[in-house]
C-alpha cells in the first residue's frame, strides 16, 4: 500500500487558478522612486495641492525610516528603485459608462468571478474593481447614491468629495505610522472610498476586488470608509494576482472611521499568488489596516481569510476611543509550502467600557511559518473594559511551524483581559477514523480544517463563507501527500 497517509511530505499539486495574465496595453511610468515620481503620479491624477503635500511629506518621512525587521519573517531585501509605482491599462480619457471599458478588462474580472457588466453583475453586492494602479469600474453607483451612500474609487473621491478626504485621509493611519504605510501614503495610486451618511444602513454589501496584473509594478491601494452616526455597512475585499517568478510588493493602507452607534464590518479573502513550491515568486503583502471607533457604542469588526501571498504582514486593528465601543477580529490564516505569515491585531482600549474579541485560527502546512502577533492594550481611562482572545494553531505535517506572540499591556486595574491559546495537529488516528468510514483522505483533511475554522467562518457574510471553505480545501488539495 502506498503509505500516503503519513502526514509528512507536503507538496502542493493544485495549480493557482487565478495565475493568468491579461494582455493589455498599459501606461507605466519608469521604475524608481523619487520626489519626481510622486509629483508625476499626483499630476497624472490631477490632484489638489494638499494631497501632493501629503504625499511628499510621507515620502520625506519614509526616506528617514528603516524597514522593520521585528516580524518573524525572512525575505530578500526589496529594491525600491526596481519597482514601477504607476501602471494603468490604457483607456479612453473619460469613461462615462461601462460600455466604454476595454472588453479585455471586463473579461478579466469575468474570469475571476466578478462580472461587472449590467447584465451579469452580482445582484446583491456593489463592486469596485481595481486593476493594477487604477479603479476600472464601480457597480450600483446610482442605486447607492439614492440612499446617499458614496461608493467610488479614491481618485474620484479626491476630485468630488475633497472635504471628506482632507478631513479623514491619514487620520487613522498617519503618514509616518510605519515604513510601509509611509510608502503607501507617498505613492498610493487608487483604492476604494465609502461614505455612509447618518442613519443609513447600506442597502447592499460593498466590495472591492484588487487585481495585480503587471509583474514589475507594486500595488499601493488605499481604502477609506467613513460611517456616520447610526449608520452601518458590510464591506468585502478580494485579491488575486498572476503567477510571476518575481516578487511583487503590495503595500496597502485601509482606514475605517465609525462615529456614534455606527458599525463597520470589513471582510477580506486574500488569495494573492503565493509563489511556487520552492518559494519562488509570490506577493509580498505588507498591509496596514486600522479602524477608529470614534463614536460612542460604535463597532468595527474585521474578519479575514488569508490564504495567499509569499509573505503576509498585517494586523487589522481597532482604536476603541468612544465609550462602549466594540472591536472584533476574526482571522483564519493558512500557510503552505514556503509561505510566511505574521498576522494578528491590535486592540487599543482608550474609552471606558470598551470591548474587544479576538479569534485567530492559524493553519500551517508544508514548510511554512504562521505566526499570530497581537497587542491588547488597556489605557488609563479604559475602566470596565474587557478583552477576550482565543488563538488556535493547527499544524499539518511535521515541517510546519506556528507561533503565538500575544502582547498585553494594562494601565487600568478595573479592566479584564482573557487569553486562551491552543495548538493541535491533525492526528493520523483522526484521519484514519474518517477514512475508515469511506471518506477520501483529502476530504477528511478539509473537513477537519473547516471544522477548526468554524468560529471564524460563522462571522463571514454568507457568500464569502462558502467561498472561503472552498478556497481552503483547494489550497490544501494534495498538500498532505
Amino acid at each position, binding site marked *: *500500500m*502506498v*503509505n*500516503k*497517509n*503519513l502526514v509528512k511530505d507536503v507538496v502542493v499539486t493544485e495549480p493557482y487558478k487565478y495565475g493568468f495574465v491579461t494582455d493589455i496595453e498599459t501606461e507605466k511610468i519608469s521604475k524608481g522612486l523619487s520626489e519626481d515620481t510622486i509629483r508625476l503620479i499626483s499630476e497624472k491624477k490631477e490632484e489638489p495641492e494638499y494631497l501632493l503635500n501629503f504625499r511628499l511629506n510621507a515620502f520625506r518621512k519614509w526616506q528617514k525610516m528603516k524597514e522593520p525587521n521585528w516580524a518573524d519573517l525572512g525575505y530578500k531585501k526589496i529594491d525600491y528603485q526596481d519597482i514601477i509605482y504607476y501602471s494603468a491599462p490604457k483607456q479612453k480619457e473619460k469613461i462615462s459608462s461601462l460600455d466604454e471599458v476595454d472588453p479585455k478588462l471586463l473579461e478579466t474580472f469575468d474570469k475571476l468571478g466578478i462580472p461587472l457588466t449590467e447584465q451579469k453583475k452580482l445582484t446583491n453586492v456593489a463592486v469596485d474593481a481595481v486593476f493594477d494602479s487604477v479603479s476600472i469600474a464601480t457597480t450600483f453607483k446610482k442605486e447607492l447614491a439614492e440612499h446617499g451612500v458614496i461608493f467610488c474609487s479614491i481618485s474620484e473621491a479626491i476630485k468630488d468629495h475633497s472635504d471628506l478626504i482632507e478631513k479623514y485621509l491619514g487620520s487613522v493611519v498617519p503618514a509616518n505610522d510605519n515604513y510601509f504605510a509611509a510608502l503607501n501614503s507617498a505613492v498610493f495610486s487608487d483604492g476604494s472610498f465609502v461614505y455612509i451618511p447618518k442613519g443609513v444602513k447600506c442597502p447592499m454589501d460593498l466590495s472591492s476586488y484588487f487585481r495585480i496584473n503587471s509583474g514589475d509594478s507594486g500595488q499601493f491601494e488605499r481604502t477609506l470608509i467613513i460611517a456616520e452616526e447610526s449608520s452601518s455597512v458590510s464591506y468585502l475585499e478580494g485579491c488575486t494576482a498572476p503567477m510571476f517568478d518575481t516578487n511583487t510588493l503590495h503595500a496597502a493602507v485601509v482606514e475605517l472611521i465609525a462615529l456614534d452607534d455606527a458599525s463597520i464590518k470589513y471582510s477580506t479573502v486574500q488569495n494573492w499568488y503565493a509563489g511556487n513550491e520552492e518559494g519562488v515568486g509570490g506577493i509580498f503583502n505588507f498591509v496596514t489596516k486600522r479602524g477608529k471607533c470614534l463614536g460612542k457604542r460604535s463597532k468595527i469588526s474585521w474578519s479575514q481569510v488569508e490564504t495567499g501571498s509569499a509573505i503576509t504582514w498585517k494586523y487589522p486593528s481597532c482604536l476603541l476611543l468612544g465609550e462602549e465601543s466594540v472591536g472584533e477580529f476574526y482571522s483564519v490564516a493558512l500557510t503552505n509550502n514556503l509561505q510566511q505569515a505574521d498576522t494578528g491585531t491590535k486592540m487599543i482600549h482608550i474609552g471606558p467600557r470598551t470591548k474587544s474579541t479576538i479569534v485567530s485560527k492559524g493553519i500551517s502546512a508544508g514548510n511554512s511559518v504562521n505566526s499570530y502577533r497581537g497587542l491588547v492594550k488597556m489605557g488609563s481611562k479604559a475602566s470596565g473594559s474587557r478583552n477576550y482572545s482565543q488563538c488556535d494553531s493547527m499544524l499539518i505535517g511535521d515541517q510546519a511551524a506556528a507561533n503565538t506572540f500575544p502582547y498585553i499591556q494594562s494601565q487600568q486595574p478595573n479592566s479584564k483581559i482573557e487569553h486562551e491559546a491552543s495548538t493541535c495537529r491533525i*492526528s*493520523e*488516528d*483522526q484521519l*484514519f*477514523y*474518517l*477514512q*475508515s*468510514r*469511506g*471518506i*477520501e*483522505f483529502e*476530504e477528511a483533511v478539509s*473537513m*477537519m480544517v*473547516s*471544522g*477548526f*475554522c*468554524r468560529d471564524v467562518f460563522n462571522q463571514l457574510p454568507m457568500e464569502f463563507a462558502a467561498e472561503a471553505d472552498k478556497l481552503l480545501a483547494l489550497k490544501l488539495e494534495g498538500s498532505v501527500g
Partner: protein
Amino acid sequence: MQSETKELDPILEVNNLFASIDNLPILKGVTISVNPGEIHAIMGRNGCGKSTLSKIIAGHPSYKITKGEIKFSGKDIQSLEPEERAQSGIFLGFQYPIEIPGVSNLEFLRVATNARRKFLNKEELDTFDFEDLVKQKLDLVKMDSAFLSRSINQGFSGGEKKRNEILQMALLEPKIAILDETDSGLDIDALRIVASGIKKISNEQTGIILITHYQRLLDEIQPDYVHVMSDGQIIKTGESDLALELEKHGYEWTDNFIKEQ
C-alpha cells in the same frame, strides 16, 4: 460478478498473516475465515494482537504486513486505501472512537453514507433524505437526535461513543463488521441496546467479528465460532462453549494450548 454459487465463499479470509509496527512484530501467523452470516468472537489477553488485527484489516497505515494475505470477497485488499476498503463494505467499530472537534456528526455520517452508496451505485442522499434515514437508524441504538448536531464523539460518554459506532454500522450496512471491544465501558442496559442493534443490522449476508473479553456480550449475541488469540496467533478455535470455559478458567488456562502446540 457475484454468481449464486459463490454465495458461500468466505467474505473475509486472513491467511498466515504476519505484521509489525516500527519493526516490532505483533501478528505472527494469523489465519481466520468468515463466511456470510457467521459470527466470530476473538478473545485473548490485552496486547495479544486483537486490535492490531482489526486495524490491519481496516487498513491502518502504521502497520506493515510482512507476510501472508487478507482477502475480502475473494480479492487481496493489501493495496487498497482505508477509504476504499470501507466503501467496499469493511467496517471497524473502534475500541476508542476518537474525538474530532468542529466536524459535525451529522455531516460526517452523511458524507460517509454517501461514499458507501456511491460505491454500491445507489443514489447519494441530500440533507433532507439523509435526515429521514438517520432518524430511523437512531432508534436502533436508542440515540437522541441531539447527538447529530454535536461534533464527532466530542464530549460523548463512553457508552454514547460506542452507540455512535453502531449507528455508523447501521448506516454503512457493511459486508463485514469487526467490532473491537464494543462492549467495554458499557453498563448492562447500554450493552443490551448495542447488542440488539448489532443483531438487527446483521443478516445472513453479513459477517461479524466480535473482539471481546466478556461472556456477557456473547450471551446477547451467540457466536458461531470462538477464537483464542495469544502472542499474535490464534491458538485455539472452538464453538460458543469455548468462551464459557474461558470465562471459568481465565486466560492462564489457554497457556496450556501453546504448550500443546
